[in-house]
């Protein structure tokens, strides 16, 4: 896997531009980065599963005000590439996934710190641009924008290279783990899904809609167990119900 480090880093650097510099189309979110990197390493489903898990756990980490969230692009990219390397018939994939995410978190935190330093440095670009503006050099704005995008691309590339290299070197440690540790990492995967549910609750649930959550869990349990509505049909039903609720509120607002 790691012989593809150049291609993987290039793709991660391109995707990481979407975090804030270009567009923000959400292609740098784990649910997209995971399957993309998984596809490149030949483990698409593993990438999709890990992307979903990372998306869920960090769902509430939002860029409000001056807060820069954890670099989830590096986190999911490095974690998926690393887990693809660790996945063998010998180990349960859940354990490899948990270990890979654990290794990738400090690298993602480092990437965020580098981003903060760069954002502090950008103040100089702004002062320079203002001086140039007063001299009527408007073209400078376009050049500075281009240079900064290249700078952020380079940062994304270097962070991905560093992440993939360090992760690769820690692969040996995983193979040395005793069986009990692997078992623990396996259990952690299920508990991480619970952590993901908590992240959603922490973000969305308030006192006034807590009862709605309880009632909806009860209704969906009834639908799944008594009505035998499961899988994609249950998801479709819930998506339709969500759409109707949203349209109802939108309609109410217009009338008011």
């Amino acid at each position: 896997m790691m012989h593809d480090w150049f291609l993987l880093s290039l793709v991660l650097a391109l995707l990481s531009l979407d975090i804030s510099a270009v567009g923000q189309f959400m292609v740098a979110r784990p649910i997209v980065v995971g399957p993309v990197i998984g596809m490149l390493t030949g483990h698409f489903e593993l990438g999709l599963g890990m992307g979903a898990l990372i998306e869920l756990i960090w769902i509430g980490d939002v860029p409000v005000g001056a807060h820069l969230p954890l670099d989830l692009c590096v986190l999911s990219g490095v974690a998926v590439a690393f887990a693809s390397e660790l996945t063998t018939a010998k180990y349960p994939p859940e354990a490899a996934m948990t270990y890979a995410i654990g290794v990738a978190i400090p690298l993602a935190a480092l990437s965020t710190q580098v981003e903060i330093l760069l954002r502090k440095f950008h103040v100089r670009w702004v002062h320079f641009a203002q001086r140039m503006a007063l001299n009527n050099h408007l073209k400078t704005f376009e050049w500075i924008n281009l240079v900064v995008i290249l700078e952020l691309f380079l940062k994304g590339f270097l962070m991905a290279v560093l992440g993939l290299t360090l992760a690769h070197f820690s692969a040996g440690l995983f193979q040395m783990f005793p069986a009990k540790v692997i078992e623990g990492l396996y259990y952690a995967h299920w508990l991480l899904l619970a952590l993901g549910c908590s992240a959603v609750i922490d973000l969305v649930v308030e006192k006034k809609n807590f009862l709605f959550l309880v009632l909806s869990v009860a209704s969906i349990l009834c639908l799944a167990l008594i009505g035998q509505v499961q899988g994609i049909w249950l998801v479709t039903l819930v998506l339709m119900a969500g759409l109707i609720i949203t349209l109802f509120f939108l309609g109410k607002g217009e009338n008011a």
Partner: protein
Amino acid sequence: MTPEEKIPELPRLTFLDLASAFLRTLFLQAVWNFERYLSFGFALVLVPVLRRIYPREERGEALSRHMEYFNTHPFMASFILGAVIRMEEERQQLPKAKQKQKEEEISALKVGMMGPLAAIGDNFFWATLRPYCGLMAVVLVMSQAFQPKGYAWIIPVLFLLVFNATHLGIRLMGFLQGYRKGDQVVLAIRRYGLQEAIRGLKLATLLLLSVLIVFVNLADLEKGPSLFILRLIFFTAIVGLFTFALHRKISPSQMFYAVVLFALMLAFWPDLSASPVILSGHAPADGFIHPLAMLK
């Protein structure tokens, strides 16, 4: 107005100028910094506009006015940008004596609107729409509906489609509404019903969360209803504990390591790891292989 005060008819903005300005809104946050936040991006969007409507010697000074502190939600900034472009155009049609007043109005509009738009944008896009789309994708992954048929790529594509249809729609409409309404744009924003959409989408997110909770535990149903109920109670207790910790401002990264540590403790605690509640994990009931068995 005396004949001396009359100003020559200046060129109006063309469709291409507006299209160029709109495309530049995609780079609004490239030079985001801790001193003036979005000011550079804001000025960058205005470059093609000022090139068209200002004489060469006045462009720099006009652009410099827009380099002051500016921070709002990047998508909602389109409303302000459209309005500022219209007001800059109107400023150029005014006699010299009234231009200063218009500049102050432009500055006041930016200062007055950036806070409320940041609040509503953060709440709608970051705290509501993105979690909804993300959770929708997660639930689709957990449903295992697309994976066996090889259509799993639909899930991230669907996530991008739902988010960006709304994101680009509001960005484009905001820009056009801002340009049409000028300083009256604040009245137009209400019509989008973002506050109502937030209320509706939050409930829709809770419905998806309920499905996720059921999916995570449903695999144990085949082992018997008592185990299923036990697992559900255990899961609910764990979720409650984690929610409390997150509510106490413990970051998800710290929580991740705490959870792994907790799981390792379970593994090394023979009585607990032997318990069927923990032991079954979330693997499918019929295909479950204990990790220790896999290692042998």
